[in-house]
C-alpha cells in the first residue's frame, strides 16, 4: 500500500457503527495453564464476571493471578476447564471480530508499515471497502500522520501502542480486552495513551476489560474494578469508581479510591508486584 489513501468524509460512512447492547457473562470459570517447565498450574478458580453495555471493567491483582489467562478465554484463544463464558447469550468457542484484544507491548507485525498493520484485520476479513475511509481517520485520531509508511522498528513505543489501538478499533469491536497494554511505556507516554484509550472508548461505545498492574491506571480508566487474589485467582472484591471523566489523578476522591483498592489487595495477601504509587 504505497499510495496514500484519501480521507473519505462521507457522513454515511461512520468510523464506528453502533454495536448495540452486549453482555459478556463469565460464570464459575476455572482454568489451568502449563508453565515454562510443563507443569500444570492452577490459574483461575471459580471466577465470575459480567460486563454489560459500554462499560470499562478493570481487573487488578498480583502477578500470575490468572488475569491474562482470563482475557484469553474471553477472546476465545483458550477454552475454560470448567465454567461458561457467553457473549450476548452465545457461548464463546473461538475468536470473533466483535471481541478484540490489545496485547502487551503492542505486538505489531514488524514486516508491515503502520498503515498496513491497521489494515490487517480489514483485509483478513475481506472488508476492503472500509479501508479507504477508516484507516486515514484512525491514523489522524491516533496522531500517526507522516508515519503511515514507516515500519514498526522505526517508530517509538508510544506510536506502536497507538497503532495497536487503531488496528483493534478499525474492526468496530463491541468488547476490547487490554492485556497490560501500557506496561512497557514511560509514565508520560502512558498517561497520554490512557487518555487516547478513553477517547476511543467514548467514541466507539465499546465495553472494555482492562487487565493491569497499575492501580492508578485502573482508577483513572475504569467504571468498576475487580480485585483478584494471588494464584489461583479468585475474586476478592469489587469497587465501583463513581467519578466523572476526565478524572483528576491527585483529587481526594481519586486517592481515596486508590487507597480502597490497595486495602482490598492487602486483604487478599496480594501486595506483591503491585505498583501502588506509580505516577
Amino acid at each position, binding site marked *: 500500500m504505497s499510495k496514500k489513501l484519501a480521507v473519505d468524509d462521507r457522513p454515511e460512512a461512520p468510523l464506528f457503527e453502533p454495536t448495540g447492547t452486549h453482555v459478556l457473562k463469565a460464570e464459575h470459570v476455572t482454568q489451568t495453564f502449563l508453565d515454562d517447565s510443563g507443569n500444570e498450574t492452577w490459574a483461575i478458580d471459580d471466577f465470575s464476571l459480567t460486563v454489560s453495555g459500554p462499560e470499562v471493567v478493570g481487573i487488578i491483582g498480583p502477578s500470575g493471578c490468572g488475569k491474562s489467562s482470563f482475557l484469553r478465554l474471553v*477472546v*476465545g484463544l483458550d477454552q475454560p476447564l470448567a465454567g461458561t463464558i457467553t457473549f450476548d447469550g452465545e457461548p464463546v468457542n473461538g*475468536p470473533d471480530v466483535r471481541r478484540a484484544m490489545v496485547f502487551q507491548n503492542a505486538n505489531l507485525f514488524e*514486516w*508491515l508499515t503502520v498503515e498496513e498493520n491497521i489494515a*490487517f484485520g480489514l483485509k483478513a476479513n475481506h472488508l476492503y471497502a472500509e479501508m479507504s475511509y477508516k484507516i486515514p481517520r484512525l491514523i489522524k485520531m491516533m496522531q500517526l500522520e507522516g508515519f503511515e509508511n514507516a*515500519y*514498526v*522498528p522505526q517508530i517509538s513505543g508510544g506510536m506502536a501502542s497507538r497503532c495497536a489501538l487503531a488496528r483493534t478499533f478499525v474492526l468496530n469491536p463491541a468488547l476490547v480486552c487490554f492485556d497490560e497494554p501500557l506496561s512497557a511505556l514511560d509514565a508520560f507516554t502512558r498517561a497520554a495513551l490512557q487518555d487516547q484509550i478513553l477517547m476511543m472508548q467514548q467514541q466507539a461505545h465499546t465495553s472494555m476489560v482492562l487487565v493491569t498492574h497499575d492501580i492508578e491506571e485502573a482508577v483513572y480508566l475504569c467504571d468498576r474494578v475487580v480485585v483478584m487474589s494471588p494464584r489461583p485467582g479468585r475474586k476478592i472484591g469489587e469497587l465501583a469508581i463513581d467519578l466523572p471523566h476526565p478524572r483528576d489523578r491527585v483529587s481526594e476522591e481519586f486517592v481515596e479510591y486508590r487507597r480502597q483498592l490497595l486495602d482490598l489487595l492487602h486483604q487478599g495477601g496480594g501486595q506483591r508486584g503491585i505498583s501502588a504509587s506509580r505516577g
Partner: protein
Amino acid sequence: MADAQPAAVQTVSAPTRRVVQRRLATAREVVRMALPLGVILVAYGLTMGLPNVYPAGYEEHYYPVFLVVSFISYGASAVIACFTPKLRNLITYYSFLIAALFGIVAVVDLLTLKSGVMLLPFSPSPDRVLQALPKNLASYGQNLAASMVLLGEGVAIGIATGFLTGLLMGWSKVANYWFAPLLKFIGPVPSAAWLPIAVAIMPTSRAAGLFLIALAIWFPLSLMLSSSIRSTDKRKIEAARVMGATEGYILFHVALPAAVPSIFDALFMGLSSSFGALIISEQLGVKAGLGWYINWASSWGEYYKVFATVGVFIIIFYLIMTLLFKVRDAVMKWQQSTVRW
C-alpha cells in the same frame, strides 16, 4: 552539505565531533590513490623491458594492453575522486588491495614468461590467461549460456519444491512426519555423492544435473522455511486470530512474511552449493557448459583456459550473489539481515 552551513552558526556552536567531508582530496589521500598507478607502471615496465624467455620468442599482446587500459581507467577514476568525496572514500579504501592485485600479477609474470620458474602448462603467464577469453569468445559464450540455463532451471525447481515442502512441513504435522526424514537424511549428503545415482536414475544427464542443482537449493530452503514457520512468534499468530484471520491467511500473511529473513539466508546457502552442483554435474554428465569446458580444457593441457574460466565463474557467481542481496534489501525494508555481503 556541511560547507553550506552559515558561518555564524559555526562560530557560536561548540566544537562538534562530526566528520566533515572535504570537497578536495588531501595530499595523503592523493598518495594513497596513486599507489596502484605506480604498481601498474612498474608491472608494465617489467613486462616490456624484460625479454620473454619461457617460451622464448613468445609475443605479448593482451597483458600490456590490459595494463594500459587498467592504468587509464583507474587513473581517470582517481582523478574524478579527487573532487568527489564519495568515490574517493571507495578508492582510498580499496587502493592497497588493487595495488596488491597488480603486484601479484606482475610477480606471476616474472615467475612464468620472464624466467620459467613456474612451469607450463600448469602455470600460464598473465598474457596467456588474458588471451583465452577474447580468442575463444564463441565457445565461452555458448558454454556460459548453457551453464546459466541449467543453473536457472535447477534453481527454479529447487525454489519451487523447497517452498512447497517448507510450507507444508511448517504448517502441517502430517507433512512434517513424512518429509522430515527425507530432509534429514537426504539433505546433508553432498551433490557429488548423488551424481552416479542421479545419472543412473534420471533419463538424461541433463535431468540428473537439474536434480542435483535443485537438491542443493531444496534442502536449506525447506529446512529453514519449515523451522521458521513452526517457530513463528505465537503472540503474532494469536493477534491475527483475534482479528479474525483464518489459518490459511495466517500462514501466508503472518508466518511466511516472518520467515522471509530465513528464506534469504537459505537461498544464500543453497545458491553457493548449487554452484558446486552445477560444476560437478557439467563435469561428469552434461556435455556443455563452463564446468564441462573447464574439464575439457584441462584434459588438453590448456590451463590458461582453465584459469580464464575460473575468472568467469568468479564474476558470474559474484554478480548472482550481489543480485540476490539487492533483492533481499528491497523485500526486507523492515529489517537488516544478519548475513552481510
